[in-house]
């Protein structure tokens, strides 16, 4: 199972390394979010010019979980959004594989059907992780960019990477399952649009939870992009975590893991159903 999944995923990764357009496009998207959105919509400016805010950084920090500037707050959210959108669109490769007859051909091999699904996941997670890491590095260099808390450690960095990896697992499990199941690019893009926008706008990727009306709060808190953003923010903004913060981080990670398991199980069922002889 593992060997076949790696072979199938490896095919796509080899292709991608030769023609990294999809990831470059994702990085361009990330840059736009960070540079353009991050600076133009910067709420710190609004606070600064507001008579209420009195230009105090403290007021902004209070609202934005202690972040010293908006892009520090925004970076984990942008990684989440870019992971969501690119992962959903990368699924189109699988849809094209179905249309070209490639999936049928794979189905004549003596391999478990689920290895086709896991193969798709492996390639998507690899691409998403590469995008996430580069976006994270990029955020340091944009104007008013990412500032890590003093004493940010290797352990914190590993925590950040773990969070990114789990988030890409969640979305690749979901979108690979959908991609294997749909029969046309049209229905795939329709479904993707139907899912990505609500996930994006009900997350705390761009604004803190305090900005949401009370009816949206439960959705925003349970949103996987929010879980990943909040977990990462704890690490990059707070640094050495208190016991309560560690629990909060662990809770977010457990939440992501739960999504991964549920979407993974769902995806396996979808893949089995889509690839069985009918």
């Amino acid at each position, binding site marked *: 199972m593992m060997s076949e999944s790696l072979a199938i995923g490896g095919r796509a990764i080899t292709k991608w390394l030769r023609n990294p357009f999809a990831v470059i496009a994702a990085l361009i998207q990330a840059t736009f979010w960070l540079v353009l959105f991050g600076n133009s919509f910067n709420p710190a400016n609004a606070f600064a010019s507001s008579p209420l805010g009195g230009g105090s950084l403290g007021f902004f920090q209070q609202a934005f979980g202690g972040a010293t500037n908006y892009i520090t707050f925004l970076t984990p959210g942008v990684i989440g959004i870019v992971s969501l959108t690119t992962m959903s669109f990368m699924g189109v490769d699988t849809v094209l594989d179905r249309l070209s007859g490639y999936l049928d051909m794979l189905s004549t091999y*003596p391999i478990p059907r689920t290895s086709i699904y896991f193969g798709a996941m492996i390639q998507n997670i690899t691409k998403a992780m590469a995008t996430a890491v580069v976006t994270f590095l990029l955020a340091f260099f944009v104007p008013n960019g990412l500032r890590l808390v003093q004493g940010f450690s290797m352990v914190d960095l590993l925590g950040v990477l773990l969070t990114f990896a789990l988030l890409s697992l969640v979305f690749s499990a979901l979108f690979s399952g959908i991609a294997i199941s749909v029969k046309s690019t049209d229905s795939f893009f329709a479904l993707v649009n139907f899912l990505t926008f609500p996930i994006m706008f009900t997350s705390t990727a761009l604004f803190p939870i305090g900005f949401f009306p009370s009816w949206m709060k439960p959705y925003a808190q349970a949103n996987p992009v929010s879980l990943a953003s909040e977990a990462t923010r704890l690490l990059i903004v707070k640094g050495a975590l208190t016991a309560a913060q560690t629990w909060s981080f662990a809770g977010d990670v457990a939440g992501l893991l739960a999504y991964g398991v549920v979407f993974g199980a769902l995806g396996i069922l979808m893949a089995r159903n889509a690839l069985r002889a009918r």
Partner: protein
Amino acid sequence: MSKIIDVEGLTKVFPPSTKAVDGVSFSVDEGEIFGFLGPNGAGKTTTMRVLSTLTSITEGTATVAGHDVGREPGPVRESIGVVPQEVTLDNELKGIENLMLSARLQHVPKKEALEQAGELLRLVELDGAADKRVRTYSGGMKRRLQLTTALIHRPKVLFLDEPTSGLDIQTRTKVWEYLKQLNRDGLTIFMTTHYLEEADQLSNRVAIMDHGVIKVSGIPSELKDRLHGDVLTLEFVDGAGDLTTLLKRIGEVAEVTRTGEVYRLKLPKVETAMPGILSAVTASGLKIKQMSLTKPTMDQVFLEVTGRSMRDAEEPQGNGSGSYGAVYAEVKTR
């Protein structure tokens, strides 16, 4: 010879009510090349998809290499190689990478796979292009590489869906040569085709399918003989008069038609009728200016069993024809 493919009363209905295959029975012996002939939409591809475990059976049974295709798809998949109608190679990978990926998914150990790959690439004359990306290949090269990906694990049965459709005649002849060579080495080949010549040239046995039903099956030469359709055309030296009655009197001549000095004689089998005709003509002191012979073609066989010629039978892509080529082209242009 043991039956390597055995199909009994195979019916496939695509919901809601499209009967693509309707109660088909046939078997293929080990070491045969079996040609499945018929127009697009006849049910050939659906039958092949059933045998290669891609499509489920509505009614009937089908076994390949001794395993039921529905209940034991795993062992069936291990014993078959499939070459679909559309090329399913990865354009961004090199020829050898495509081949090795196939080997890995067929669980061929790497060392053995490399040896087998070298051998196969030499057979299809692609050993020089193995390290080039498939996107640089011509259509014929892609087909040949596709063939090797289906053979890397030394399958018992090779399924070919329209192996040479769209290829130029030169490449087509080459592909036929490879297939004959592989068959001589013991490979059983099951292929669908709508080229009559292909079925005729390559197959030990053919089945003609139309509207989901096998109309006739047998050895190509026997099917043609059954038509009693040999035509001998004789042109006599001027001034011989009307020879119709004389020619009709010869034992095996079934029918005579005259156009000037040219006579068309319909014979059951020219090989046995010829001596009688020649001696009758010589005995009457007549001189033949020219003679020619037409043997029946598979197209005539097709016409005989379906009531239409193959060309007329070609209809828009039918149900379950399984070709995604057109759809893919549409997607790519977006």
